[in-house]
């Protein structure tokens, strides 16, 4: 088990390196650099910067160097926890991203837990009541949930809340807490607001997961061992929870790997509609302004999160499923 974890950790290194290269290429894609955008903005307001001023800025930001030098400098900085300077906000990137990343991860994790808590019982119920009316109702609702875009749900929830409760559920904090330092009150306030994005994000995930639990469990219910256990006189509920459900749930652990990136992706769009202080809106702005270190760090960190998510799900899978552990020991 430990060698397995170590091997997986070693594989992560080249993966993350590749990701950093691709990320760097992507943020370099738009024609021009931050200074072009900067000058265009200045020109719009009627000001202009002198050539020497621009040149000195260029040198200061390291934009005058060759691309691979810029990349290596960026990578070297990241390894030391220095993500570079945000051009537009004039602050170190690390100051800007951590809180937003933490909020994104919090929303994603709460959503993940909610999804599992809701989806697994419904999936089990659906599978044991196959082709009954309730099964059809859940299946239908599931498909609707899968087909509704997140931004529409966000928009509808906001409108309903505005019409009937008189408040807009935008943001994650009440006004008085937005710039307040972290405290217990602030966390309570966060929990009061966080349910909106969690509900929106849970809908699509739950729908998909219910389908999966149902399909997996249906496969298991036909197995001879279920018949054997039933013939031996095990009560239906114990039989169900002890054997087929346990096997059927294993693949769901592996969904953690792809659910996490999906949730992060989904939260970006929902965050923009709801105007949440998570990664989404700032990432979008950074991309638009070609604030490359800020945008690059966001993409890099979100991808790293995904890689870590996959790693955790692999380890969990080996931990809950003895068959996988056994196979590994054999090889």
């Amino acid at each position, binding site marked *: 088990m430990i060698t397995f974890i170590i091997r997986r950790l070693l594989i992560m290194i*080249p*993966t993350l390196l*590749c*990701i950093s290269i*691709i990320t760097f290429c*992507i*943020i370099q*894609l*738009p*024609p021009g650099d931050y200074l072009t955008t900067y000058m265009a903005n200045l020109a719009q307001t009627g000001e202009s910067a002198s050539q020497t001023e621009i040149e000195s800025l260029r040198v200061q930001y390291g934009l005058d160097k060759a691309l691979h030098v810029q990349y290596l400098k960026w990578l070297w900085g990241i390894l030391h926890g220095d993500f570079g300077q945000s051009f537009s906000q004039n602050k170190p990137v690390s100051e800007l991203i951590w809180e937003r990343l933490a909020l994104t991860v919090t929303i994603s994790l709460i959503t993940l837990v909610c999804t599992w808590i809701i989806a697994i019982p419904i999936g089990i119920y659906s599978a044991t009541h196959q082709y009954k009316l309730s099964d059809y109702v859940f299946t239908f609702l599931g*498909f*609707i949930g*899968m*087909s*509704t*875009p*997140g*931004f*529409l749900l966000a*928009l*509808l929830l*906001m*409108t309903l809340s*505005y*019409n009937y409760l008189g408040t*807009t559920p935008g943001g994650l904090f009440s006004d008085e807490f937005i710039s307040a330092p972290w405290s217990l009150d602030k966390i309570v306030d966060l929990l009061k607001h966080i349910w909106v994005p969690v509900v929106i994000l849970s809908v699509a995930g739950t729908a998909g997961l219910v389908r999966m639990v149902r399909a997996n469990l249906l496969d298991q219910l036909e197995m001879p061992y279920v018949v054997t256990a039933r013939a031996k006189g095990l009560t239906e509920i114990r039989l169900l929870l002890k054997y087929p459900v346990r096997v059927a749930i294993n693949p769901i652990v592996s969904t953690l790997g*792809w659910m996490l*990136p*999906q949730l*992060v*992706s*989904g939260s*970006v*769009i929902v965050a*923009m*509609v709801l105007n949440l202080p998570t*990664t989404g809106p700032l*990432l*979008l702005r950074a*991309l*638009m302004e070609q604030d490359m270190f800020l*945008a690059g760090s*966001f*993409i890099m960190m*979100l*991808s790293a*999160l*995904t*890689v870590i998510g*996959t790693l955790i799900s692999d380890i969990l899978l080996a931990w809950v499923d003895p068959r996988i552990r056994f196979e590994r020991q054999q090889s």
Partner: protein
Amino acid sequence: MSAAADGKQGRSPFSSEAPQADEKLYLASQWKLMRLKFRDHKLAVFALYVVIALYCMTVLCEFLAPSTPNTRDAKHSFAKPQRIRLFHEGRLRRPFIYPLEQHIDDETLARTYTNDTSRPLPIRLFVQGAPYRMWGLIPMKRHLIGLDEGERLYLMGADRLGRDLFSRILYGSRISLSIGLVGVGISLILGVIVGGISGYYGGLIDNLIQRFIEVLRSFPTIPLWLALSAAMPATWSQLEVYFCMTVILALIGWTGLARVVRGKILALREEDYAMAARVAGVTEFSIIMRHLIPGFVSHLIVTITLAIPGMVMAETSLSFLRLGLRSPTISWGVLLQDAQNIRAVNLYPWLLLPVVFVIVTVLMFNFLGDGLRDAADPYSH
């Protein structure tokens, strides 16, 4: 529940028909079995018809639309959807609508609309209306439905400039529905080539390709799409943006297809018939193309069907966030840009109607894919 099982249960074992029916099933080709099994899945068959209808709609949108998408009318800014009625003054008539009358409040300048109930306007078929070019080529004036000359039909309301939303949705379907197909097409080509190479040759190449796919897949899609869309220069023409969007959408999609192809080829290349072909001196390219790929075409079709709705949804979401297509291009996502805030949703809820089309499309493709998945394996029970 295959058709074979039905045949056995439905008829008495002594009747002479039963063995014949079974015989037919034994001799039926794989495709025929799939067709039979697909027909059992009522919902999927229904979804297939809806999808066909949707695509017919995109092909004929100029003719079906009561108006052209860019005809403005200040007198009908934010006009509400007109209801089709059957009773005028208590008497049954052919379907008609009441024309809208605009009133502007002198102080707030707010517009309100009332129905002019004195003047019922019958909805006519094949009317002469705004001129257009069918498929951009043939000049025509006939529209499937419409009102008498000079009156405007707003079945789904109008936007700020008084353009008919229904017509715009129909025209928008052309972009929104084709972007999924083109995107999937690109993914398919890439996926089959890369997955085929990876699965057939195995070894180091396979390892490298699989690692690369893993790296690509570990990017969260939306931030990646955001970054790539933001990289599109604002000066690009509509066509360039459209093409770039499909490429961006396909960029992630192909990895899933490549995995399916690789897994299947890994399994199939060990089959005897593949070995026989190799011994007979068939080139490797044609072994993959002619002997291995036909073995899992059905699985590919399922994967493709289930990939299209994701792309339709992605295009809508990106355009909604003003990162994908931009007006004057018309797509469902672009139309939804008008309904971005609570005010718009409250005052002009019909601006959200394009999303209904998105949901129906995605839903139907999912049903269809579900039915096809069951049918793709006709030998399972």
